[in-house]
């Protein structure tokens, strides 16, 4: 409804639903599928890199105070650099056709999210199980393996849901700076050629993709990791 009203008001700039549907047909299913696949892979690989790094970071930080300070500083640094800067610098380094810039931009954007949630999770669990660890005479490594890492899973799932949502959004921005494909690339490509219906078509693809990923993947995962919190009595 809103969309239809907008397209009636700004007839020049905003194509209506009918024109957009036609554009979708014109772009064609194979290209749409390919664009979605590139964006999904960029997002997930970038998220995976951030996940590995953040898990490694909290593990090392937990075992060593100096490394704790180091990762805090690193996190502050990464957080203070704009996504725009990452995208431009990485495209300059790897070239426009490389798949690495979007992946690494996504990693840089999601690492702070994962890290800060995992950090607060570790702190909460450490407080909660300090006494138990003492009673059982657990070493720091045993505490990490048996109390912290299993306990962190729900925190991780919650953070991942946010992180993957952001990964999709950031990935398309980074794709726009290169020429390695993906929904973001095609969006800007359509824009550069003044193909308004194409811009709207790709925008809708992006929105539907985000909703689908959240409902079909992220929510079920989160629910699964929280299963032991439910009270069944």
């Amino acid at each position, binding site marked *: 409804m809103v969309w239809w009203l907008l397209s009636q008001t700004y007839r020049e700039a905003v194509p209506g639903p009918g024109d957009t549907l036609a554009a979708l047909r014109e772009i064609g299913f194979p290209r749409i599928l390919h664009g979605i696949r590139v964006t999904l892979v960029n997002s997930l690989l970038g998220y995976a890199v951030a996940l590995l790094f953040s898990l490694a970071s909290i593990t090392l930080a937990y075992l060593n105070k100096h490394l704790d300070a180091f990762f805090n500083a690193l996190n502050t640094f990464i957080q203070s650099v704009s996504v725009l800067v990452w995208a431009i610098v990485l495209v300059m380094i790897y070239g426009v056709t490389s798949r690495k810039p979007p992946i690494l931009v996504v990693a840089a954007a999601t690492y702070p999210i994962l890290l800060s949630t995992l950090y607060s999770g570790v702190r909460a669990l450490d407080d909660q*199980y300090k*006494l*138990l660890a003492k*009673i*059982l005479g657990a070493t720091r490594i045993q505490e990490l393996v048996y109390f912290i890492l299993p*306990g962190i899973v729900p925190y991780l799932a919650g953070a991942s849901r946010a992180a993957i949502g952001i990964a999709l959004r950031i990935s398309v921005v980074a794709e726009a700076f290169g020429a390695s494909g993906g929904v973001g690339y095609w969006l800007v490509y359509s824009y550069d050629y003044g193909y308004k219906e194409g811009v709207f078509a790709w925008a809708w693809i992006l929105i539907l993709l985000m909703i689908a990923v959240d409902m079909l993947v992220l929510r079920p995962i989160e629910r699964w990791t929280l299963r*032991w*919190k439910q009270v*069944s*009595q």
Partner: protein
Amino acid sequence: METGEPVVIVEDLVKTYDGELVLDHIDLMVLRGESIGIAGPNGAGKSTLLKIIAGIEHPTSGRVEVRGRVGFVPQETLLLPWRTLRGNIMLAAKLRGIPAGEAKETVLWASKLLSLEEYLDKRPAQVSGGTRRKAQILMALVLKPDILLLDEPFTGLDQDTINALQEALLGLQRNHKLTMVTVSHMLDELMSISSKLYLLTHKPARIREMNLG
């Protein structure tokens, strides 16, 4: 090892937290096979005293000697929510270096004694507070303690559960030659399971034996 010899000796124990005196020159002796109760108001220092005996907290000054292995049941139940009760108990045994076979044997008889068998494969969130408390006790028993320290084991339980748990604890103490030290802010909870009662006064806590005769 005969009954009657001292297994917990506390002499002139002082504990301060940030300069604030909590335990004020405490003397206590527990003999092997005895079950003693220590009552006192909230904040008196009962948990602190038990933790010091368990070796979890350190005294500011004074002497604490414990002869034998200690099992400590904390005031708040501390079970890992992602493991079943059995999973928690077996992890405790593993971390303390108790062979799995021995631990399973303990789980077998002790879960029967505590009427815990049907809940062993449930997670903490799926059982009642009383069942969680019993699991916490089993988690201490699986370490094969000579001395069992219980911090407010009856708090928050209904009277039937309290009676059953007191019965089970008495059985443990008699049949397995356990030495028991139980603290509670409710004196009457300690009466039926203790052969000696002590009173911790309000902070800074001093201790005195109560006349049961």
